[in-house]
C-alpha cells in the first residue's frame, strides 16, 4: 500500500522535459500510472468501509487524486452490489455513516476541551519539543493526582464525613495550619487519624478498614500498571527502534523544528545547528589515542568527583537524620503541645531538606565542569544519576527514621505525625520551586543582561525541573497511606506551578541551544518515575501495611496487629458464607502461599529468556537482510550494464531516430557503475549526474518499448 502513491511522483517529478531526454513519451508513463491506480482501487474495494476511508486518508497524494480514487472505489462497490440494495442495507449504510460522523465530531470536541492545549502549542512553537516535554510530564502527573484524589475522596473521605457529621474539632483554625499541616488539620479527615472504623457502633454498615486498604491498593496497582505500560511503549519507540550508535548527522538534520515562526529564533537555531554539526564532525575525526598518563589522570579526576558527590550526599543524609532525632526529642520534652513556636519549629526539617535539594545539585554541576567528558550526552546522564542518588538517599533516610523511630517514640498517632511531615515537605518544596525559579531564571537574566553580558540569557533547565517533579510525586505517593487528601495539595501545587513556570519561561529564558534527544530523555524520565520513585513508595507502603503495628488510639485499624490483618479477618468471616468459597480459596492458596509466587517468578524468568533469544535471532536477521539489500543493489547494477551492452549492439539502426536516447543512456550507465563501486572517490562525476540515474523502471520500460518497436519492424 505504501508504494502505490509514490509511483506517480517518482515518475513525473521533472515534468515533460526530463522525460523527453530519456526518450519516453508521456503516454507510456501515464499508462503505467493508470494500471497502478486500478490495482490500488481493486485493493481498496476489498476492505471494509472504515478501513477503506483510513487507507485513503493515509495515501500521500494531493486531495484531488484522493477524491478521484474514492469515487472510483465507491463506483466499483456500488456496481458490485448491483440491484441488491434493499431497504435494510440502505438503512444500515445510513446508520453507520451517521455513527461515523458522530464519532468524528466527538473526537474533535474532545480535542477542544483538553486542558492547556493552546498554551502548550505556544510553548512548543517558541521553545521546541524538549521544553514542551517538561510541561506534558507535569500534565501527566496532574492526571495521576486527580485520579488519586477522586478515588480517595469518593471511597474514603465522603463516608467518613457522612459518619462523623456533627462532631467538630476542638482546636481553632489559625493561618499557620496551611503551612505546618498540624493543629486544626490534625483532627480532620486530612490525615489517617481522622478516620474511624464505624461498623462496631451505630447502624452505619460501611467497613472503613477494608475501604481504606483496598482503595489505596487499587490505586497503587493502577498507577503501577499504567507506568509500566507507558515506560515499555516509550522504550520501544525511542530506544529499540532508534539507532543508538553514531547516527548523529541524520538525527541533527531531521530535528529541524518546522513549527518555529520567530525570525530570530530561526536564525539562532541555524547557528546552533551549524555549531553542533561542526562539533559532531570534530568528534568523529578525533582519535581516541590518549597517552596512558592522560587517561590515568582522567580516571583519577572522575573517581575524585564521584567520591566527593557521594560524600556530599552522605553528609546531608547524616545532618537530616540528626535533625529528625532532635525533633523527636523536642516532642518528648515539650510542655504544651499546640504552642505556636513549637509548631513553627517543625518547619525546620523540611526547610533543611529542600535547601539541600536545591544547593547540592548546583555543587554537582560545578563539579561536572571540572571533569571532562568526551560525550555530552554521557555528561547529562551522570548529572541526572547523581541528583537522583542524592534525592533518593535523603528520602530513604527519612523513611528509615519514620519506620524505625517514629512508630515507637511518638505518644500520639504516629501515622498522622508522618502525614504531617509529608505535608510540610510538599508545601516547602513548592516554595523552594518558586524560589529556584526566581533565582535561577529571573535573577540570572537580570545579571546576564545588565551586569555581566557574557553569561547571557539562561536556558530552561529541563533536567533539574523534571527531577524536582519526580521527587514531589514520590512524596505524594508515600503520603497516600498516611494522608489520603495529600493528592489534593499536590494537584493545587502542580496547577499553580504550571502557570508560574510558563510565565518565568516566557519572560526569562531563551530556546535551548543544543537540540537534545528529547524523546530519549522522556523515556528516561518515565523510567525514573517508575524506579526508584514509584517502586520505593510502593515498598514503603507495603512494608507499613504488612509489618508495622497501627497505633492504638486513632485510625481505622486500631486494635489490630498489622493493617493486613483486616483482610485476613474479613476472609475468615467470608469463609462461613459458602457462595464465596472460591474467593477464600484464592486468598488462602494463591495470595498467602509462597509456592505460588515462586512458580510465577520461575515462569516469568523462562519467558524472559525465551524472548531474549528471539531478540538475538532478530538482530542477526537484520544484519543478513542488510547484506541482501547491498547484494541486490549490485545485481541491479550488473543487469543494467548487461542491458546497456545489449542495447548498444541492437540500437545502431535506430540511431537516427533516438539521438538523445542511447548517448544519454551510455552516460547514465557509466555513472551508474561508478556509483556501484563506491561513492568515496574524489573524481566523482557530480557535474553530469543525470536526474534519472537510478530509476531502473525507466530503463526497463524503455527497453520494453524498444523491444516492441523491434517486433513491429520485423
Amino acid at each position, binding site marked *: 500500500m505504501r508504494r502505490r502513491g509514490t509511483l506517480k511522483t517518482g515518475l513525473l517529478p521533472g515534468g515533460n522535459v526530463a522525460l523527453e531526454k530519456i526518450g519516453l513519451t508521456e503516454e507510456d508513463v501515464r499508462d503505467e500510472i493508470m494500471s497502478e491506480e486500478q490495482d490500488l482501487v481493486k485493493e481498496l474495494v476489498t476492505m471494509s468501509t472504515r478501513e477503506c476511508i483510513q487507507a485513503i486518508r493515509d495515501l500521500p497524494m494531493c486531495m484531488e487524486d484522493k477524491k478521484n480514487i474514492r469515487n472510483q472505489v465507491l463506483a466499483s462497490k456500488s456496481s458490485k452490489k448491483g440491484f441488491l440494495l434493499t431497504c435494510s442495507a440502505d438503512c444500515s449504510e445510513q446508520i453507520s455513516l451517521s455513527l461515523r460522523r458522530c464519532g468524528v465530531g466527538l473526537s474533535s470536541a474532545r480535542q477542544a476541551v483538553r486542558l492547556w492545549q493552546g498554551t502548550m502549542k505556544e510553548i512548543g512553537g517558541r521553545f521546541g519539543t524538549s521544553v514542551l516535554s517538561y510541561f506534558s510530564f507535569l500534565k501527566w502527573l496532574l492526571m495521576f493526582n486527580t485520579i488519586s484524589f477522586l478515588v480517595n475522596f469518593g471511597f474514603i473521605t465522603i463516608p467518613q464525613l457522612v459518619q462523623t457529621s456533627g462532631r467538630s474539632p476542638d482546636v481553632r483554625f489559625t493561618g499557620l495550619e496551611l503551612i505546618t499541616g498540624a493543629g486544626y488539620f490534625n483532627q480532620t479527615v486530612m490525615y489517617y487519624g481522622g478516620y474511624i472504623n464505624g461498623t462496631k457502633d451505630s447502624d452505619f454498615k460501611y467497613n472503613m478498614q477494608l475501604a481504606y486498604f483496598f482503595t489505596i491498593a487499587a490505586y497503587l496497582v493502577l498507577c503501577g500498571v499504567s507506568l509500566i505500560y507507558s515506560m515499555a511503549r516509550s522504550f520501544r519507540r525511542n530506544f529499540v*527502534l*532508534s539507532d543508538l550508535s553514531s547516527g548523529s548527522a541524520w538525527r541533527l538534520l531531521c530535528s529541524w523544528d*518546522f513549527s518555529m515562526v520567530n525570525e530570530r529564533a530561526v536564525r539562532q537555531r541555524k547557528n546552533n545547528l551549524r555549531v553542533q554539526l561542526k562539533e559532531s564532525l570534530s568528534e568523529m575525526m578525533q582519535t581516541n589515542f590518549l597517552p596512558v598518563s592522560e587517561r590515568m589522570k582522567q580516571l583519577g579526576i572522575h573517581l575524585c568527583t564521584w567520591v566527593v558527590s557521594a560524600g556530599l550526599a552522605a553528609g546531608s543524609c547524616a545532618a537530616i537524620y540528626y535533625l529528625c532525632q532532635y525533633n523527636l526529642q523536642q516532642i518528648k520534652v515539650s510542655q504544651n503541645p499546640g504552642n505556636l513556636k513549637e509548631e513553627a519549629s517543625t518547619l525546620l526539617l523540611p526547610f533543611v531538606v529542600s535547601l539541600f535539594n536545591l544547593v547540592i545539585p548546583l555543587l554537582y554541576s560545578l563539579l561536572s565542569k571540572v571533569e571532562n567528558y568526551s560525550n555530552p550526552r554521557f555528561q547529562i546522564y551522570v548529572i541526572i544519576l547523581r541528583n537522583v542518588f542524592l534525592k533518593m538517599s535523603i528520602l530513604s533516610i527519612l523513611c528509615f527514621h519514620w519506620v524505625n523511630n517514629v512508630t515507637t517514640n511518638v505518644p500520639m498517632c504516629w501515622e498522622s505525625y508522618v502525614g504531617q511531615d509529608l505535608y510540610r515537605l510538599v508545601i516547602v518544596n513548592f516554595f523552594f520551586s518558586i524560589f529556584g525559579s526566581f533565582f535561577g531564571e529571573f535573577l540570572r537574566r537580570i545579571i546576564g543582561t545588565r551586569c555581566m553580558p557574557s553569561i547571557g540569557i539562561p536556558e530552561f533547565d529541563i533536567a533539574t525541573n523534571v527531577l524536582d517533579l519526580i521527587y514531589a510525586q514520590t512524596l505524594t505517593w508515600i503520603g497516600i497511606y498516611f494522608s489520603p487528601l495529600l493528592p489534593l495539595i499536590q494537584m493545587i501545587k502542580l496547577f499553580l506551578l504550571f502557570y508560574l513556570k510558563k510565565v518565568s519561561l516566557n519572560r526569562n529564558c531563551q530556546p535551548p541551544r543544543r537540540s537534545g534527544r*528529547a524523546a530519549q530523555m522522556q523515556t528516561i524520565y518515565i523510567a525514573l518515575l517508575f524506579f526508584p520513585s514509584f517502586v520505593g513508595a510502593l515498598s514503603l507502603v507495603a512494608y507499613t501495611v504488612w509489618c508495622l503495628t497501627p497505633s492504638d488510639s486513632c485510625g481505622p485499624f486500631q486494635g489490630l496487629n498489622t493493617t493486613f490483618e483486616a483482610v485476613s479477618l474479613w476472609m475468615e468471616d467470608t469463609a462461613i458464607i459458602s457462595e464465596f468459597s472460591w474467593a477464600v480459596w484464592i486468598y488462602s492458596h494463591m495470595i498467602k502461599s509462597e509456592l505460588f509466587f515462586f512458580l510465577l517468578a520461575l515462569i516469568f524468568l523462562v519467558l524472559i529468556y525465551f524472548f531474549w533469544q528471539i531478540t538475538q535471532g532478530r538482530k542477526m536477521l537484520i544484519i543478513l537482510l542488510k547484506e541482501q539489500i547491498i547484494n541486490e543493489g549490485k545485481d541491479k547494477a550488473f543487469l543494467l550494464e548487461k542491458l546497456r551492452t545489449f542495447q548498444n549492439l541492437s540500437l545502431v539502426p535506430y540511431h537516427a531516430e533516438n539521438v538523445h536516447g542511447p548517448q544519454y543512456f551510455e552516460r547514465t550507465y557509466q555513472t551508474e557503475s561508478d556509483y556501484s563501486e563506491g561513492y568515496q572517490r574524489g573524481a566523482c562525476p557530480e557535474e553530469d549526474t543525470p536526474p534519472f540515474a537510478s530509476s531502473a523502471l525507466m530503463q526497463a520500460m524503455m527497453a520494453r518499448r524498444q523491444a516492441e518497436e523491434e517486433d513491429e519492424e520485423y
Partner: protein
Amino acid sequence: MGTSASQLPKDLLSEYQSNPFKERICLVFSTSDNKDGSLTFEDFLDLLSAFSDSATSDIKSHYAFRIFDFDDDGTLDRKDLERLVNCLTGDTDETRLTSDEMKQLINNILEESDIDKDGTVNLSEFQHVISRSPDFVSSFKIVL
C-alpha cells in the same frame, strides 16, 4: 481572502513564514500546472494535513523526502544533501560549512542511510532512517 477557487501565490505565503524550506514546501504541495508554487485552497488543506499532529509517520516522511529533494528526481543525491545542509545552517559565506566539512558530513550521512550503496538515498532508505529518529515526527509540525 478569496473563494475556494482562488490561488495563493508563493511570495504572499513566504511573508508569513521564516521557514528555510518555504519555497520547497510551496512547490511540493502545489498542483497548479505552471509550477509556480501557487496554492489553491485544497493544496493548503493538504499542506496543513501533512504537517498536523494526526498525520502518520509515513505521510510525513514521504512529504519530507519530496521537500528535501531539491532537483525533483526522486532521490537524494550529494547535491540535494549539500543544499539541504546549506539551507539548515545558513547560506551566506560566513555561515556555510567548509567544503571539507561538507564532504565529510555528506559521507557520514550516506554511510548511515544508503543501504544499497548506490550513492543516493531513495524514498525507502529515507523512510527507514526517519523511523529510527523518534524526534522527527514531533518536529515535522506546523501549528497555526
